[in-house]
């Protein structure tokens, strides 16, 4: 066994070399090596993701350029439908096909923005501020408009003066938690991924 190991090399293990050298085409490999010396390798990544637009949840493959080193920023260069994804088999709708521009749009919302009543422009606010404000307004509205019983005196526990539009393209778990939180508050006007 040891003898046969030393005698043979598995093709996979030896790395590429030109078998042609052994067949009498010597020199080709050295010439090629000299030819390619000035060139460099570039590295790209492909990453699977889910299109964020709607609750169909099409699979996408995102192409990024970058050497992967810690400080280098990757640059997204292309997005296409994932041919292996059972939902869309490589296809995308016009919105999904334009995802690259969506990601790179200069007008893309990257922070919570707030437009106060009576003003005409948005200003950037912190997440803490935004969440506190949303919670405050929801609580006030629910306290004021919650319907515990209907005209016949039957318990209904509904809150119809506020609606909730939650994320599409989320996981089952996120959809479940959203449902739990929103429905247990009595909210009726509600849509998210769990509908489909």
């Amino acid at each position, binding site marked *: 066994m040891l003898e046969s190991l030393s005698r043979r090399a598995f093709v996979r293990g030896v790395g590429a070399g030109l078998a*042609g050298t052994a067949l009498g085409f010597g020199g080709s*490999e050295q010439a090629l090596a000299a030819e390619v010396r000035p060139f460099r390798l570039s590295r*790209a990544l492909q990453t699977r993701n889910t299109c964020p637009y709607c609750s169909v949840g099409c699979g996408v493959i995102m192409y990024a350029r970058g050497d992967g080193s810690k400080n280098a920023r990757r640059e997204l260069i292309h997005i296409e439908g994932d041919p292996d994804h059972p939902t869309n088999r490589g296809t995308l709708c016009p919105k999904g096909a334009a995802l690259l521009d969506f990601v790179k749009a200069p007008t893309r919302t990257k922070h919570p923005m707030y437009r106060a009543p009576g003003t005409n422009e948005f200003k950037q606010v912190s997440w803490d501020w935004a969440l506190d404000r949303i919670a405050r307004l929801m609580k006030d509205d629910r306290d004021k408009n919650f319907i515990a019983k209907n005209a016949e005196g039957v318990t209904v526990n509904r809150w119809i003066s506020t609606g909730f539009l939650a994320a599409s393209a989320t996981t089952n778990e996120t959809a479940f938690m959203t449902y739990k939180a929103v429905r247990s508050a009595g909210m009726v006007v509600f849509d998210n991924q769990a509908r489909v």
Partner: protein
Amino acid sequence: MSTEPPPRPSFSPIGIGTESRAPFALLPDPVALFEGRATRFRATAEGALAPYLSFLAAVAEAQGRCAGGIAMLDEEAVARSLAHGMPPIDRQGLKHDAGMDVTVRRFLDACGGVVMPEVAEAARAALLADNARRHARIADALEDAVAMEDVAGFVLAAAGVQVHLAGLAAGLPAAKLAPVGDGACPCCGGPPGASLVVARDGAQGARFAVCAACGTEWNVVRVKCTLCGATGGIAYHEIEGSTDGIQAETCDSCGLYVKIMAQERHPELDPVADDVASMALDLKLGETVFRRGGVNPFLAGM
């Protein structure tokens, strides 16, 4: 004037809700496979590798000349292998198979008219004259293990083995083939040589790994190592500025790479011919931590 009512409008089904799923395996058409490969070897024969690529074009032509008429495998044995999740072509059994030996001899004979260097011609003559040597090289080729003392003989025998395995694979029931493991051909259990991203009807953008020996193509999900099956740590390397559609798909898990060819954009790409022709990429990858994982006897490194 006719009193007959106008015919009712009819609508043909337009296939809403039907799913186009890529076939799991595509079997080779041996004669077309080797003839196409010869054409591609000739087309790529430029630059430093031109003499070798021209020689391989002639080898592929010789392969094409003896690719027809290879007997099919025993149906019962094939069914038994498939029932047990084994590849139907038994490589071990073929080491001492008379049919395999006949095909390899026919191929070596067919190489008679090929202009080749003296070393190669001597290796060919030795394989034809010495039965034990030929049987040993066939066994090496079936194991993808290069015999260091007779590399030239190994390459020629491996080319003959490709012809026989492609012929056997062509007669298998494609629809019954099933995955036999990561990095293993569903027909012969061998490793892939390269993979192709294709633009075929019903399989747009799907990826197929191509068996280095029998030429069978099997569907492998993209962004996944074709050897170890890892889906994380996959990257794509190419020579900066190149537009040939050939990249090295590297895997951080197993540390190997297999070339992936964008046949959807470059339909002329051949998994064997362009693998040799793009050896520059291998030389560049040789400067990294990754080692070559795709098998190609014409690139059997020394």
